[in-house]
């Protein structure tokens, strides 16, 4: 090859070909890049529901803290891995589930569990005396106090330690402290927990009907 233009031009065409098919085509496809929420015929509401304001700010906290370095937000189809058996979601997550997400945090490593449907998950039985928010606040404040052996970082900087005045804050974490102080979630902690709570897959989408646990069981029975 004697002509630099041939090299540069060829390199340009090769990359453009890949970009135009994998990205440009997908981004403008009516059944993928231009998906929108759809109306649920049962109750007339649109799914997936838009994320509420506080939860939307929680998404920013999630991104800021780099949660994606350990947590995925994608449920694999029943039968591929054990996502459904672990209770991470009853169906595969599909593209439409993410249309409202400002920054899609699919993630590519599971040092911690998948969080795509963490908002649906119930508090573990031994902690069932705690409500959902309190459990997750305590867990963020000190993961190892609830899950011994966990390698998750703790986030005490999302909580304020302050002197108890009068009866104390109703929002204080249910921790037994005997030094006259209490631990209260900051705005960021509240937003983050609201965001986690908003992560759900408990609505039906027509394109995901064959990707549910039930569909998988029926398929197994037929076989």
């Amino acid at each position, binding site marked *: 090859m004697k002509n*630099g233009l041939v090299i540069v031009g060829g390199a340009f065409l090769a990359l453009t070909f890949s970009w135009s098919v*994998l990205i440009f085509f997908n981004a403008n496809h009516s059944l993928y890049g*231009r998906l929108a929420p759809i109306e649920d015929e049962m109750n007339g509401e649109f799914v997936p529901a838009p994320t509420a304001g506080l939860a939307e700010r929680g998404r920013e906290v999630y991104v800021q803290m780099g949660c994606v370095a350990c947590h995925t937000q994608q449920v*694999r189809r029943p039968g591929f891995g054990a996502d459904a058996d672990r209770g991470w979601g009853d169906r595969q997550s599909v*593209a439409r589930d993410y249309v409202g997400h400002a920054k899609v945090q699919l993630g*590519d*490593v599971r040092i911690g569990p998948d969080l795509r449907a963490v908002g649906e998950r119930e508090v573990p039985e031994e902690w069932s005396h705690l409500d959902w928010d309190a459990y997750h606040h305590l867990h963020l404040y000190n993961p190892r106090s609830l899950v011994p052996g966990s390698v998750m970082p703790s986030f005490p900087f999302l909580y304020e330690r302050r002197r108890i005045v009068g009866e104390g804050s109703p929002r204080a974490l249910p921790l037994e402290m005997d030094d006259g102080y209490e631990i209260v979630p900051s705005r960021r902690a509240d937003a983050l927990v609201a965001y986690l709570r908003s992560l759900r897959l408990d609505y039906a989408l027509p394109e995901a009907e064959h990707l549910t646990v039930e569909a998988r069981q029926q398929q197994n029975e037929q076989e």
Partner: protein
Amino acid sequence: MTTVHSNVPSRRSSPYSTGGIAEAEIDQSTRVPVMFFVGTALLWLLISTLLGLITSLKVHWPQFLDGIEWLTYGRVRGAFMTAFLYGWASSAAFAVGLWLMARLSQNRLIFGPLLLLAGTFWNIGVIAGVGGVLLGESTGFLALEMPAFAGPLLLVAYAFVGAWCVFTFYGRQYQTTYAAQWYLLAAFFWFPWVFSIAQVMLVFAPVRGTVQSVVNAWYAANFFLLWLTPIALAAIYYFLPKILGRPIRYYYLAVIGFWCFAVIAPWAGVARLTSGPVPAWVSSAGIVAMTMMLVPVAIIAINFFSSFGAVAGTRKTTTLAFIRVAAVVFVALFLVGALLAYRTFQEVIQFTHVNTAMWMLGVYAFFSMAVFGTLYFLLPRLFMRGWASPTLTAIHFWCSLVGVLLIVLSLAVGGWIQGVQINNPEVAFVDGVRATLPWLVGATLGWIILLIAHVAFVWNVVALVVSRAVSAESQAILQANPPAMKVRGQTT
């Protein structure tokens, strides 16, 4: 003094040794910018090694530096990626790319000192990127964690480096080009293209839903496949014949290898989206491309390995040792990568430490080793003096090799265990984590060994730069370019 790095026919018949510019003169013309990029790259190498060690420690020892906002795992990991990919790898790629391009084009690098401006901007961009991630401004996208304001800065700085590279190429002495030049030219063209696409489609005008994930996977893979890989391949194509003193065998295949690489590689990155909330054909295309990559890889492997063979003692240089490791890892990486892309394996390893193991194999055991090899050749010629300490050189070589192998093997085994445990719903998640811990400790040991390697290397470089005396021994090393090679009985 002869220049021996090519076996292109026209070069053999050209009056090469008399008509060209002396190599020493070319080297000196690149001295200022290359020194700057090497210096800053080494600083970033040390910083990213520390950040890498911290991330590795935190995965199995969560109490380590726990509860400090800017040192929380997610942020340190993002800062590590930014410092390593943009601080170390890209700066090193600039240094290697500029110097190689000048040498291969037999052309002086003109107005080299102007590139200090580009280098300064680049480093401001990387500092802003790493600092921004630590302060919580991460974009949350893999390999593009740097906050929005850092991206344009990097792109402008890059534009200078890329332009200089192209100018140097266009002023080349001989029309005929060599394989290393194709890869360099393509890499310097691909990088700004994929980088700006990712910046626009993820940060400035984000695409919708999981199309972001496709763009991100495409970018993260192409950063390695279309930017770091071609630079390292160019270095190997340059040094193997030069040091061994014999031409690349089956060189006529190289052009086929290059075009196969250019056409297939841009598709290979999306394989990792298997079973994700994206169209299934996207990951299928990626898997097919990963397998098809074996064609260019096989051709390049034929070029490289058939040149290996027995080596005379005088040619056994440090550069050759590093370059050989890089060449072997390159082939191993794509063989294993093609296999692991299949869904049978993805079901187990898709979200595990195996990904990190493969990443380290690519950016460190392949790319960084090729860069180290280049620097061992390049720095004595820039400074006109020899390496201060063969002991430090040996420490660097063996520690970087052992360190990275320890990391890769530990994470591969630990990651496999992690995948098997996660796929077994009978095992509590935290017990699965516990089973991987010993292997993660192994990876941390590897990082400590890498730290030793890098401290030894930087020490060696500093000693080379500050030493005033030029020993007779090092003078001899300097003067001796590798002995001229014989091409079909004719000495060039």
